[in-house]
């Protein structure tokens, strides 16, 4: 049933994929993110974050408060590159 349980709605990552990666030794959020794109979609980890951290905590025997979440970087939503370039040019003038 793990294969029908969606952890990441943005990139369609299942509980099975997450558990398999943890079994292979990928026990940080950032590693799982780099392999599956979890946390890189429109929600930026808001839906999957807690669920993945819980899985990591359970399998590694850590308390969830000690599990490190992903590094957060701007922008929090998608911004077209053209807009960023335009603002950069405005500030040069």
């Amino acid at each position, binding site marked *: *049933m*793990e294969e*029908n*349980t*969606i*952890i990441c*709605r943005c990139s369609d990552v299942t*509980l099975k994929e997450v558990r398999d990666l943890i079994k292979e030794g990928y026990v940080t959020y950032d590693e799982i993110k780099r392999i599956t794109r979890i946390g890189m979609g429109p929600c*930026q980890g*808001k*839906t*999957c974050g*807690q*669920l993945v951290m819980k899985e990591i905590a359970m399998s590694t025997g850590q308390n*969830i*408060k*000690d599990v490190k*979440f992903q590094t*957060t*970087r*701007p*922008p*929090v*939503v998608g*911004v*077209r590159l053209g*807009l*960023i370039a*335009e*603002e950069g040019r*405005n*500030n040069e003038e």
Partner: protein
Amino acid sequence: MKEAELVIVGAGPAGLCAAISAASSGAKVLIIERNKSLGGQLVKQTHMFFGSEKQYASTRGIDITDILLTELKKYEKNVEILTNSTVVGMYEDGIITVLHKEDKYFKIKPKAVIVCTGAFEKSLAFPNNDLPGIYGAGAVQTLMNVYGVKPGNKVLMVGAGNIGLIVSYQLMQAGVEVVAILDAAPKIGGYLVHASKIRRMGVPILTGYTVKEAIGKDYLEKAVICKLDNKFQQIPGTEQTLDADVMCISVGLTPLNELLSMSGCEMKYIPQLSGTVPVRNEDYETTIENLFVAGDISGVEEASAAMVEGYLAGLCAAAKIGHKAEDFENKKMDYLKQLSELRSGPVGEHILAGIEQIVR
């Protein structure tokens, strides 16, 4: 680059109160709100609030927005409002970046910022949790109370906290059948006055239960639920199948902290406050100077507490940048007193145990 004195990120109950408080102290306030209208989640809260008169008890959430906006209007010469605008970045040099709709992107250099971004809903992992018909409680409230759209006919509510109980009652008022309310915890989390009202209408509240599986071809048709033991593990053989075309997930909120997290202020995971929250002082200033917080982002509580936190953070942030209100000390004492009154009682004790770990 746009200059600003005090930027308030988010115009929910905390943000609006922070704006009123800071603008009335004499600070020039710039409110930046992601949505097209102000009020945040108050817009969908058609129920009457608890608390005391100072936090608008017995007033419907939706009407509180108007009260706050009328108050804010008194100081309009000090207030600028940007709607449809998302703060997308906060940087170490104090600059913040804003995206307006999808076609304008600009930088702001404020003297101080109050982040009031609130919280977002937690989700649950179970087989077929992506079937249409499975919603967060916020989405069900938006459909019903904002757009007047019935989400379905038979609802299974997952979560017996205040949101789960209130949304269940509102569904019944709208003529939708609520099949049952589940909660994994051994006790009902919400106020008993809400729970009793629902029980009297014949809806079972099953504590110590979870969703084992959702079933359906193109949309939700049935839900399998089962009992949990005292370690929250599913007990085989206790499964029950319920007919439902809507499942409403209401398993709590967690602080929306991504802006704070990228700003570099010190943060801690505090279970009593429902997630990762900033370390702060009594004035709601984080470990980064002139970066303040208020509302659910500093720990998930009721909107009443968010409003008082907003008033307090607005007052203190304004004072910090040279706009100390005439009766600053009295106001501050009053807000602190209101907060400690709101945090009396068993739920408050739990919250206070969390706050103790982050206040320096």
